[in-house]
């Protein structure tokens, strides 16, 4: 592709991302799946999310793998983004906690106590 194509694609992607969390009700779960996360059980967590979403008939969730968030002490980690709730990073997300996130966070719009973590730093790409 050409320079113009790349620039066009970037703008389109940014616009799509902005839309995602304002109106179309998509819920995004980003699961830390570096070697560290996987070693701590992220694959079981993923399975638990998928199963629980299925049994609860929640269909508007996108689960996305990502690399290491840096919380080695509390792997596996998951970031949940949805309208009406603050973006939330959860740590020590085993299968049981994954089910609680679906029930409490996604369905009841309540945080899962004891598992909330703060983003480790601000986002330099959002600074001008």
């Amino acid at each position, binding site marked *: 592709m050409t320079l113009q194509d*790349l620039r066009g694609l970037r703008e389109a992607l940014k616009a799509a991302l902005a839309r995602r969390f304002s109106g179309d009700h998509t819920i995004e779960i*980003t699961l*830390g799946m570096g*070697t560290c996360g996987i070693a701590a059980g992220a694959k079981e967590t993923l399975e638990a999310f998928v199963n629980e979403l299925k049994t609860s008939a929640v269909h508007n969730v996108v689960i996305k793998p990502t690399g290491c968030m*840096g919380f080695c002490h509390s792997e596996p*980690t998951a970031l949940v983004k949805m309208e009406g709730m603050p973006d939330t990073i959860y740590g020590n997300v085993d299968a049981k906690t994954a089910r609680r996130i679906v029930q409490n966070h996604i369905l009841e719009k309540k945080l899962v106590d004891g598992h909330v973590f703060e983003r480790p730093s601000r986002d*330099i790409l959002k600074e001008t």
Partner: protein
Amino acid sequence: MALNQFCLVCGGTGCESRHSDAVYKNLKSAAEELGVGNQVQVVKTGCFGFCEKGPIVKILPDESFYVGVKPEDAHQIMAEHLVKGLPVEHLLHKTHGHHSGWGEYASQLYQKQVRIVLRNCGIIDPEDVQEYISRDGYAGLEKALFEMSPTEVIAEVKASGLRGRGGAGFPTGLKWENTRKTVSDQRYVICNADEGDPGAYMDRSTLEGDPHSVLEAMTIAGYAMGASQGFIYIRAEYPLAIHRLEVAMQQSREMGLLGKDILGSGFDFAIEIRLGAGAFVCGEETALMQSIEGNRGMPQPKPPYPSESGLWGKPTAINNVETLANIPVILLKGSAWFASIGTPTSKGTKVFALTGKINNSGLVEVPMGTTLREIVYDIGGGIRGGKAFKAVQSGGPSGGVLPAQFLDTPIDYESLTKVGSMMGSGGLIVLDEDDCIVDVVKFYLDFSVEESCGKCAPCRIGGRKLLNLLTKITKGKGTRADIETMRQIGFAMQRASLCMLGGTTPNPILSTLKYFENEYLEHIDHQHCPAGKCKDLITYSVLASKCIGCTVCARKCPVNCMSGERKSAHFIDPAKCIKCGACYEACKFEAILVS
């Protein structure tokens, strides 16, 4: 009524020790009392990484940030802020005279970490190039190819002050300039991903979390230096990182971001992956190039430097993963922005793998000039189990051990070298009072001796001799003369070894002899290991007065050397005991004595 506000209380160890638990309980009861229990949820969180100002309470969604909150403040926060919407001014965290209580950006200003290298790690899907592009991915390459000449790119990197993150800290722009200056028909760019220090995993995490940033940087480097071929030398023990790199390369090729005529600019650049077999010495640049050429990985004398005669005799620039991951951001945000972070001699950030006896082990990225105390106590949340801090081992087997007196040293290349350690690749292992310095040093020597390629005598023989002397000391058979001998061998190795593996092997010994000589002497003069780690110098026994006969130790003992009836004091058979410490770890009544 549905929940509409959240009250996050830090439950990290630092804040808990200052009664954050009572703050949490008081907030909960205040919410009930004021009748907002069904609108405000009080939640306990993991460490915020700002322990010095704890306990911390954050209110969502408005992002207000309260510091130093006492249990008696809880009611006021609930009544004023959460019920009436009026912030409690005197508790809000302030920076530079402004309240940083409002807005996501402002509320995170307190954070010690600045993520440049790890900007996308944990945010994007590494196997989806579109996610990288949506976060300004390949915008640095765009700028380089279409708005800058190769020499301008080099000038920008030079101006940024970026130095090699692999350990030695050579200025990256200068390396590129030297490589470009050498006249040749072909030049090469190599990404050194042969990360091998025990306890270091910065590069693995970067490649697993954001492979495109390294591909983009290598392409920029190729353009700047006039190279059309790049190699990523990565150890085969990193299968996930390799897989994600391969996926990323495939996507980049398909999109015309790698290969022939990149983005229609006329510039060609190809990248190939070379797998290392796991020899530590292959992280040394000349040995690495030997390995890529298909030879046994052994270092070569320098000069000539790789920038003059490198891979297959052609000028070659070798940059570490972390160094490269900075490049796209430097082009995107400019060298002035990058140079504004860090210290006068060391710009930007450094990623550390923080491990050992620490509460929040993890991957942290901090500006150069951050002190060890901030890393250990604020980000790391202090020492596990409330034990006393003893030292930090930095720089892996090439580095040294820094005692408590250097906790307030701002970390950069120069300051670490000055106190006898080095930046190295970025492993930080925290030691507490239970760690024996001689034993820790022996571990690193063991590693370096095992990994010596054997080519030069100082490293091959010197390392083995040092290890033998250390072993002798940990068995209680050392003499004071041995210390002098170790110093002499170390001195010779530093000067006569062919590469830095041999040159830095004695560093752990020499730095600890400087700060912990007494601990060596304790082993030598009194055959005593103060931390109770050196197996030949300790015995385990049961304190009959404290043992309640719960039998936990007997069940944990791997060699069944413990005897005794249930509910009566147990006994350890010293002839059978292998001194593994399992009983000591298992006992809840402090009845196991190490002497």
